[in-house]
């Protein structure tokens, strides 16, 4: 890379207008990263309250603000002294819509499905400080700095908080003002690009993944290949957590965790701190990447949550969600749930992290319930004992955590891919043959997905080709078909295929000899053709189909030529439209 290429100013901005519309455009860059930054404090009279928010004109409903307040503080039971970082996810109020949508399709088009902007939820990234302070009536200083974003960039935003929050607690509002203005100078996130993000006197460097990335490669290595300048803070990833650390007391159950996430089973993670429960939930959700986890998940959930009633009512079966909680009160609430993971403080047995045991749900009763995986679930596939042995040996040999994490991540990735490749292959076979796409007919239909037909393909082209894991793969697929994750995956793929078909059709039409075709056609048929072609063009543009601009232009030319072949009075009518 030419080092001079970077010489241009990075988002320089000279002041901001004071009127409303100007201030909105002024925060445009900030909004591509964050919705807002909040400071939540404890008020003796009102409880948790938002003390500060940037930008000041951010559109949050009262309900959203209340939720943010509750979700930004650890439960009183978790007694977090010092600094605590965790994450939450919150449902957006009905009818609320962010201001930038639609303008940034380049991001959603190129980002992996798992890193899309969440249009229905906000992510909250929290840095909470609780220290003794005699000058405060309550005897404690308690405050949270919270980033609210649509982006699931947990690693980036938690690293940013680590940098910003300690300075903020000392230097207060001007610090926050400065940071928000600096973020407002950041370049927008572009998949595949390594960005320099200047903040508080340092430049953070991070690469935004694309859907075309080779999976399983080390993101660090990718950054090096681009030969960028050394930056003081290089983040290896925007979104990945240290899976090994998150799962260290659950390593022997990794197969079960993966299946529960894949199937979108109702699952509660109960942990002593919001850090542990939120990281574990996010790790579970990411364990099936590159598949998108399509159900709801709440890394940190409290009894004040607006969905509390909805999710804990006993009149219906537990919903397909993963919840992270810390309040022991939830043990009673969730005793009817099929899967509850109760984590304790990490204990060592010898030099290994003590592994929690699978326990009967019936034992889940009292507040002091022991750590364990409370479930009657039996895995469809056998656990990979070699992997577990390798990871545990790694701990004894003091293998670096990043390496352990990479081993675990690779295992999960290969497992998900082994599972999903037969489905992808079968789905591709449902696509009509290219030669059946002709200019004179509407494009042929994609054949319907038949579960039985798919099952028959497994014998020759099943997951056994890429995975050594034995067990009831068929059963796992059958169960998967009933889960929201299958539904989400299928809809997405089906939409992509429909668009692909539409593109092929457009290409075929642009190559067709329309002049010859219209020769023996009636006026009505020709007018009909013109209208159809026009509609196709509009649709292609509106949906931003991945079709070459030349193809579209060629087709526009076609339309003009065809119109010119018509009698003049008709021409006038068609051109006026």
């Amino acid at each position: 890379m030419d080092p001079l290429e970077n010489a241009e100013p990075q988002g320089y901005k000279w002041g901001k207008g004071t009127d409303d519309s100007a201030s909105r455009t002024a925060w445009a860059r900030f909004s591509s990263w964050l919705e807002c930054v909040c400071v939540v404090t404890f008020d003796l009279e009102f409880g948790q309250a938002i003390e500060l928010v940037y930008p000041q004109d951010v559109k949050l409903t009262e309900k959203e603000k209340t939720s943010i307040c509750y979700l930004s503080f650890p439960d009183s039971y978790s007694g977090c002294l010092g600094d605590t970082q965790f994450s939450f996810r919150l449902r957006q109020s009905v009818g609320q819509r962010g201001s930038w949508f639609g303008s940034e399709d380049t991001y959603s088009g190129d980002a992996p499905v798992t890193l899309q902007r969440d249009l229905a939820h906000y992510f909250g990234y929290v840095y909470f400080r609780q220290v003794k302070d005699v000058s405060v009536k309550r005897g404690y200083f308690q405050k949270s700095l919270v980033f609210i974003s649509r982006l699931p960039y947990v690693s980036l935003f938690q690293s940013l908080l680590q940098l910003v929050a300690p300075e903020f607690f000392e230097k207060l509002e001007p610090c926050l003002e400065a940071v928000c203005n600096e973020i407002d100078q950041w370049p927008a996130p572009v998949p595949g690009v390594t960005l320099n993000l200047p903040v508080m006197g340092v430049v953070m460097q991070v690469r935004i993944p694309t859907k075309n990335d080779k999976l399983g490669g080390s993101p660090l290595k990718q950054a090096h290949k681009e030969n960028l300048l050394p930056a003081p803070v290089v983040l290896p990833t925007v979104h990945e957590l240290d899976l090994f650390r998150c799962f260290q007391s659950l390593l022997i159950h990794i197969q079960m965790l993966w299946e529960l996430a894949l199937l979108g089973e109702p699952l509660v993670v109960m942990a002593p701190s919001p850090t542990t429960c939120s990281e574990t939930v996010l790790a579970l959700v990411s364990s099936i990447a590159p598949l998108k986890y399509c159900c709801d998940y709440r890394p940190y959930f409290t009894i004040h949550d607006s969905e509390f009633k909805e999710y804990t009512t006993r009149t219906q079966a537990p919903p397909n969600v993963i919840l992270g909680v810390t309040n022991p009160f939830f043990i009673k609430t969730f005793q009817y749930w099929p899967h509850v993971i109760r984590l304790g403080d990490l204990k060592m047995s010898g030099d290994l992290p003590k592994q929690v045991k699978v326990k009967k749900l019936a034992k889940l009763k009292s507040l002091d319930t022991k750590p364990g995986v409370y479930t009657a679930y039996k895995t469809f596939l056998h656990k990979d004992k070699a992997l577990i042995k390798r990871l545990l040996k790694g701990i004894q040999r003091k293998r670096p955590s990043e390496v352990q994490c990479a081993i675990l991540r690779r295992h999960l990735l290969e497992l998900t891919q082994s599972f999903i490749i037969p489905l992808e292959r079968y789905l591709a076979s449902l696509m009509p043959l290219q030669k059946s796409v002709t200019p004179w007919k509407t494009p042929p239909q994609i054949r319907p997905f038949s579960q039985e037909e798919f099952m028959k393909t497994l014998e020759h082209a099943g997951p056994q080709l890429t995975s050594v894991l034995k067990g009831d793969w068929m059963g796992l697929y059958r169960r998967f078909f009933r889960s929201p994750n299958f539904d989400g995956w299928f809809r997405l793929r089906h939409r992509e295929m429909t668009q692909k078909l539409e593109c092929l059709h457009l290409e075929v039409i642009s190559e067709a000899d329309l002049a010859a075709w219209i020769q023996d056609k009636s006026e009505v048929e020709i007018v009909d053709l013109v209208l159809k072609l026009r509609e196709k063009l509009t649709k292609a543009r509106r949906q931003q189909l991945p079709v070459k601009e030349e193809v579209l232009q060629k087709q526009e030319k076609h339309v003009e030529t065809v119109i010119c072949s018509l009698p003049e009075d008709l021409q006038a009518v068609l051109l006026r439209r």
Partner: protein
Amino acid sequence: MALRELKVCLLGETGVGKSSIVWRFVEDSFDPNINPTIGASFMTKTVQYQNELHKFLIWDTAGQERFRALAPMYYRGSAAAIIVYDITKEESFQTLKNWVKELRQHGPPNIVVAIAGNKCDLGDAREVTEKDAKDFADSIHAIFVETSAKNAININEVFREISQRIPVAEASGAAAGKGFKLRRQPSDTRRSCC
């Protein structure tokens, strides 16, 4: 050609023209009506100096008093600081002396200091003589120039002089003789590319 990143911060009272100097250096333009900086602005510009490329990572700080406490974040790890005053405002020169004091006490040990007397196009309204400023700069071994961001006078020169005074890469023991010397300690802003 070797490429070095040099963190540079601009300090000084509000309204003396810190942002205008940066804007002139990076974009070669001038806007008489810019708003006060909030927090800090960040810009980069790469220039060739002898057989090296110097990429300046420029942190243009806010001069307003309420942002005063944030300054350490920006001069921390800086290879150079440009302290700016307004030649038509005696007070801004006094503020500059306070910045020098603060850098001595809390700044990086061998930070290169440049003093820029900006708005030298407004000679008629001058309150700080060139000699006084020059004498002060010499007494602390700092670079000194009078500049005009408006008329593009001596702007590139400030950065060129900074390039000159930056110790030669890797040989951190040898050079830096002319710098703003307090204590010696290898700076981690100069690490070369991997």
